[in-house]
């Protein structure tokens, strides 16, 4: 009798009431298909293509016609033996570290400041976001003009307060050029950090500060003992996102200095660009970009581990 109550192919172990739910689950997964296709086409395929390229001998002759010879680790060995690569890596880490430190310090200061209530706060916060919204091509060129030795605003201001006498071409000297690109990058990332940290600050209950006040804690003590520990996950996220974005920054530095003067601002993305698209060495360009993945990847692992520890605690 029981068999007649079921459709062919449906066994007794599956209660009939669950069938539509199961179908709905299967159907729901279809919505992920465009996203999967998108990720496969725009992220995974180029990534795999780039890694494959880094193991082949690809000059200008092979990039179009194909047929590049597989050379194993040879390109990596060549690249790791080049002083220029290590120089670019060191400059990249220096540039990223300094830019993130400056952006974080400024972002934190602004977040703490704007976490207080005062008239005009919201308008000022929105205005500060302009630096983040502004297209890089605009901000980098504006910085380039402002730092010009002959007619730049920065030199005019420095001369007005008596700190400078004569022309100083910031982007023509190695050390000033590095500081200039660091500051321009930090300037554009600061509002992003500020917004992230401000959201974190607003999640800290006022009662904690009141309790700390009653215990006699001053402003600095409240910042170090209440704010900073509670902001730790937000801080980590902000630092990591900022580090990864800055480490792969290309446009700001390219537009301001093209990696110069000399090799002073030759960060890895520009080094890889020059190798591939200026000198037509696509293989070594691919090696450089593949190796570039290692630093943010390592940091991401560290980040997720520390997040897991936070959650477990």
């Amino acid at each position, binding site marked *: 009798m029981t068999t007649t109550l079921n459709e062919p192919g449906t066994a007794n172990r599956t209660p009939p009431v669950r*069938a539509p739910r199961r179908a709905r689950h299967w159907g729901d997964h279809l919505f992920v298909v465009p996203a999967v296709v998108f990720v496969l086409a725009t992220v995974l395929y180029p990534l795999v293509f780039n890694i494959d390229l880094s193991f082949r001998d690809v000059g200008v*002759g092979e*990039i179009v016609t194909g047929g590049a010879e597989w050379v194993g680790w040879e390109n990596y060995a060549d690249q790791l033996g080049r002083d220029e690569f290590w120089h670019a890596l060191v400059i990249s880490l220096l540039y990223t570290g300094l830019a993130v430190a400056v952006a974080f310090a400024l972002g934190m200061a602004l977040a703490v400041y704007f976490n207080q209530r005062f008239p005009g706060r919201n308008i000022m916060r929105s205005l500060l976001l302009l630096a983040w919204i502004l297209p890089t091509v605009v901000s980098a060129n504006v910085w380039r003009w402002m730092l010009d030795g002959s007619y730049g605003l920065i030199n005019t201001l420095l001369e007005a307060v008596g700190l400078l006498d004569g*022309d100083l071409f910031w*982007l023509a000297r190695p050390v000033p050029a590095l500081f200039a690109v660091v500051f321009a990058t930090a300037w554009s990332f600061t509002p992003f950090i500020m917004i992230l940290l401000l959201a974190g600050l607003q999640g800290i209950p006022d009662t904690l500060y009141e309790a700390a006040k009653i215990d006699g804690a001053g402003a600095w003590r409240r910042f170090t003992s209440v704010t900073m520990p509670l902001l730790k996950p937000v801080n980590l996220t902000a630092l990591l996102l900022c580090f990864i974005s800055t480490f792969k920054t290309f446009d700001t530095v390219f537009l301001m200095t*093209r990696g110069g*003067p*000399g090799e002073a601002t030759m960060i890895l993305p520009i080094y890889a660009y020059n190798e591939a*698209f200026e000198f037509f060495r696509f293989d070594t360009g691919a090696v450089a970009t593949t190796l570039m993945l290692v630093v943010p990847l390592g940091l991401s692992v560290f980040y997720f581990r520390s997040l897991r520890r936070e959650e477990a605690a």
Partner: protein
Amino acid sequence: MGTTGGRSVAAWTARAAGVLAAAALLTACGSGSDDETSGDGDGGATTLSLWHYYGTPDTPTGAALQGLLDRYEEEHDGVTIEARHIPFGDFTRTLLQSAAGGDLPDIALINGFTTQALADAGVIQDLSDRVDEWGEADRYFETGWQTTQVDGATYAIPHVADAYAVYYNETMLAEAGLEPPTTWAEMQDHATQLSDGERYGLAFSGIEGDEGATALVIRLLAAGGDPAQLDSEAGVTALTQFSDMIAGGAVSNGVLTWNEEDVKNQFANGQAAMMINSATYLSVLAEENPELQWNVALLPTDAQASTFLSQENLAISTSTENADAAWDVIAWMQQPDVLAEYLPERNKLAARDDVDTGDDPVRAIFAEQLQQAWAPEGDLAAASSEVLTRIQGALQAAAGGGASPADAVAEAQGQIDEALANVE
């Protein structure tokens, strides 16, 4: 129950199919737009695509080219040329990427120095047979024509040529009682006299990358040197003089950050008494700064008279289905009477010797300078971008980085040798 489940699956399948169809449509839209620009259309109409880096039609350089293409269309019924502007910095990269994707234009207007690289990459086709039949190859200036040659075959036709000369501010030189310099010692002397703390004597582009090597290459050639051999007496002489001029204030330290447009602006604003630049800025200077009294002189000469060639070539892509139509456009654009009208608009010089260039004395100076043009050949042509970048690096190291000229050229020579050795 089963019926309900079946309807549900069918409904979801239909929805999923809809989503996939939409995705497929989006993909098709993304890749299909360029396909319309090539191939024979209906009724014998032909649409050709042409990629260039001159500028959009609302810029002076882009407008001149668009005017030329419009003229061709007017004279040739059924032919449409769709021009696409790609910025210079992205041009070669875009061509190579498009070639890898099998989506090239019919005609490409390329830089003379990248012709060999694009031929090696299989992006542009061998035109030797067409050129033999055409029979006008011997009309072209030797150095410019050499940029179209790869392993004895012709891969492009020179479109226009350009050369570098000295622009000078007549008022400033007259006030100082000076004539344009004829040797580099005079150039340094004049530049020093003409600088006064507010303005500099000489300006040129020394920006990071290959563009910033031009002036130093010009100075090196004048001393009888060879850019492939920077570590030589001529190389040290050239670099020492440039470093001295920068250190002494005759040339601004800012040249290390200036491209050629910036250099033109410095000259136009009276910040520089002389500049080394190409003919590109002739009409811009005349139109934008009518009150500025300026003129042009030949570059100073020491051991030899030389200038740096700047040239664009016309090439046909390997993937075109309209090679005959593309060749017809190229050959038409190279007719002397067409060039005679087009070149003054474009502020360029003829790459061939049978074009009436008019009687403008300034253009005559550039045309004379063009006769002494130098361009890289052979392995140096294939690695020219890297070699020139290294030469700029030597300028930077000596002028801004504190290295001695001898150390700077020795360091750059190692990199130049490596670049030349990498040429396959």
